[in-house]
């Protein structure tokens, strides 16, 4: 008898151990997947935060920049800064002669270098006429070569850079004139055709306007719907049906919302294409079910004794909700909203449908201007043929992930901060 019992007991312990091991294995494999994912994104994306420049002595010739001596910024903007930079490069390589060779030499610099120089001069016109030390940004191909990724071994015809250009870059590197620096423009500038000049700022601002619209619509609507369904609506077949459909809505593929937005918001109401307003409205539709479901769960978790207490002293139904139930449910409501917003932040497909896939250089200054958002920017860069967009894509993903982590973290903090016990 006791032998049998011991056997049963051993089997039970073994089953428990097996289950524990399976669980641990599942958690570990999930962790490994996460580490691999984040690791590869970071590994690929980090180089984009570094850019390479050539240190040059540039002579700011007054006859080129401001021949009339008016110091009129409008005129000075138009000057040929590319030429000045090319002259500075030619000074490094006096042997380069002829228009074609000089042009090829100038092509190792990014067009952005001339803009940087222009901005420097416009900031401080007293520099005109002097020779200054200037760090000129390399073009994307030159940058790749400096990083050792330029494909030196390929035949010249299949390379972006000619043998001569490679020679010049090697010489500059030998003379210690190639320096690397933090690529602030990745965060501060908008999109560009030139990978080395492209940044996520316009997409960040576009995401901001889009999410602001989403929040402004989905939060009040979602909370109101949650209160109505949970506290005021009669519990009958109609509201039951409504509840099922809200749950269904949460599972609708996001592209369907995009098509809906295209047909209704753009087609019928004539909202501007590519605008954060339309994008935000589409994402609000998508986020609403999440907010409603989270809101209802939070409201339901407030103990009924609180409602009884409020009603018992003569509060009306609405007073009991707004004075007591809602404040207690708020942390849960906000957590749900933030998680819904985080999902909206990462959403691409519906926004493609309403044209937020535009090439946006300047950050939109309002919700009606054409804009794009971070995940769409990732998509756009991932599609670009230039090799230098590869690390930039990963860098944009890093920025996106940083925002997502920030939002999820704030949801957790909110929950811990305001969680009440009774």
């Amino acid at each position, binding site marked *: 008898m006791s032998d049998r019992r011991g056997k049963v007991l051993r089997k039970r312990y073994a089953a428990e151990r097996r289950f524990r091991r399976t669980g641990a294995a599942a958690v570990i494999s999930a962790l490994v997947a996460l580490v691999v994912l984040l690791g590869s994104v970071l590994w690929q994306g980090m180089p984009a935060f570094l850019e390479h420049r050539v240190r040059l002595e540039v002579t700011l010739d007054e006859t080129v920049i401001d021949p009339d001596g008016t110091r009129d910024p409008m005129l000075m903007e138009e000057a040929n800064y590319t030429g000045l930079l090319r002259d500075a490069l030619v000074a490094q390589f006096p042997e380069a002669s002829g228009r074609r060779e000089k042009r090829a030499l100038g092509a190792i610099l990014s067009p952005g270098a001339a803009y940087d120089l222009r901005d420097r001069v416009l900031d401080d016109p007293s520099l005109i006429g002097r020779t200054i030390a200037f760090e000129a940004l390399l073009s994307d191909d030159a940058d790749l070569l400096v990083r050792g990724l330029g494909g030196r071994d390929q035949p010249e015809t299949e390379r972006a850079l000619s043998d001569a250009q490679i020679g010049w870059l090697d010489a500059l590197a030998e003379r210690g004139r190639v320096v690397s620096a933090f690529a602030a423009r990745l965060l501060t500038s908008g999109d560009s055709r030139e990978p080395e000049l492209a940044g996520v700022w316009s997409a960040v601002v576009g995401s901001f306007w889009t999410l602001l619209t989403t929040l402004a619509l989905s939060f009040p609507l979602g909370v109101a719907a949650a209160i109505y369904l949970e506290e005021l609506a009669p519990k009958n077949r109609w509201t039951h049906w409504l509840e099922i459909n809200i749950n269904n809505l949460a599972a609708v593929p996001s592209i369907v919302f995009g098509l809906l937005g295209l047909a209704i918001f753009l087609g019928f109401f004539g909202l501007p294409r590519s605008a954060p307003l339309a994008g935000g409205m589409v994402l609000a539709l998508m986020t609403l079910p999440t907010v409603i479901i989270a809101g209802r769960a939070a409201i339901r978790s407030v103990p009924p004794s609180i409602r*009884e*207490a409020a009603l018992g002293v*003569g509060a*009306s139904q609405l007073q009991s909700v707004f004075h007591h139930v809602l404040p207690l449910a708020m942390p849960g409501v906000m957590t749900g909203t933030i998680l819904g917003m985080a999902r909206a932040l990462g959403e691409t497909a519906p926004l493609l449908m309403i044209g937020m896939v535009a090439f946006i250089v300047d950050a939109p200054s309002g919700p009606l201007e054409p804009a794009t958002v971070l995940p769409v920017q990732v998509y756009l860069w991932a599609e670009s043929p230039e090799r230098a967009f590869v690390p930039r894509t990963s860098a944009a993903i890093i920025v996106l992930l940083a925002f997502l982590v920030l939002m999820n973290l704030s949801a957790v903090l909110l929950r811990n901060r305001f969680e009440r016990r009774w």
Partner: protein
Amino acid sequence: MTSAKISARGLSVYYGEKQALFDVDLDIPEHRVTALIGPSGCGKSTFIRCINRMNDVIESCRVEGKIAIDGEDLYAPYVDVVALRARVGMVFQKPNPFPKSVYENVAYGPRIHGLAESRAALDEIVIRSLERAGLWGEVKDRLHDPGTSLSGGQQQRLCIARAIAVSPEVILMDEPCSALDPIATARIEELIAELRESFTIAIVTHSMQQAARVSQSTAFFHLGRVIEFGETAQIFTDPRDTKTRDYITGRFG
């Protein structure tokens, strides 16, 4: 017996298909404590929840017959439930203070009913209510601590203070001591005896001793009907109905 404050005539209550009260006739006398006793599910709570219409919250609940305070029908169409609940305070089974400060707990009722003209008047109401609930001495230095930080007995007295802050005429108590220890229970019972002077009190209780100690009238409910109603002393010493006798002597229930 003094005059009836609350009178029910032919009161029947249904939860959906299920009938919880059958044709109840009951007069709750003014300025006395009336204990409602009976086994679980006999309709005591349903009955007192008719007096402040807390049953309204339950969708399937239907009330037939008449129940009146001072002759005014509570279920007449012109009756405002919110105003009614200001006249009829309620203390629940489990202490349920709002998760706000002690002060706010008591001040909430007067505030939503506009009973205090000024901040000072509101302070006055809060202090007086806490005094009458016998809690002032214990909480006067911690008025701004959360009400939920008090002990169970203190929380229940806070709930009583909250109920009397809106100066009701009737206080309903639904097993107010069932979650409390004997010492806290004794304090509440003393308090009920004091409050009887100013309020009409109906208390649901499962404790025979408590009913005998605090009440002057007792109604015995069984399966949704009032089996016996009379002076507490008479019910406990000389019950007329055998069911009442069996229940109070502990033979069933």
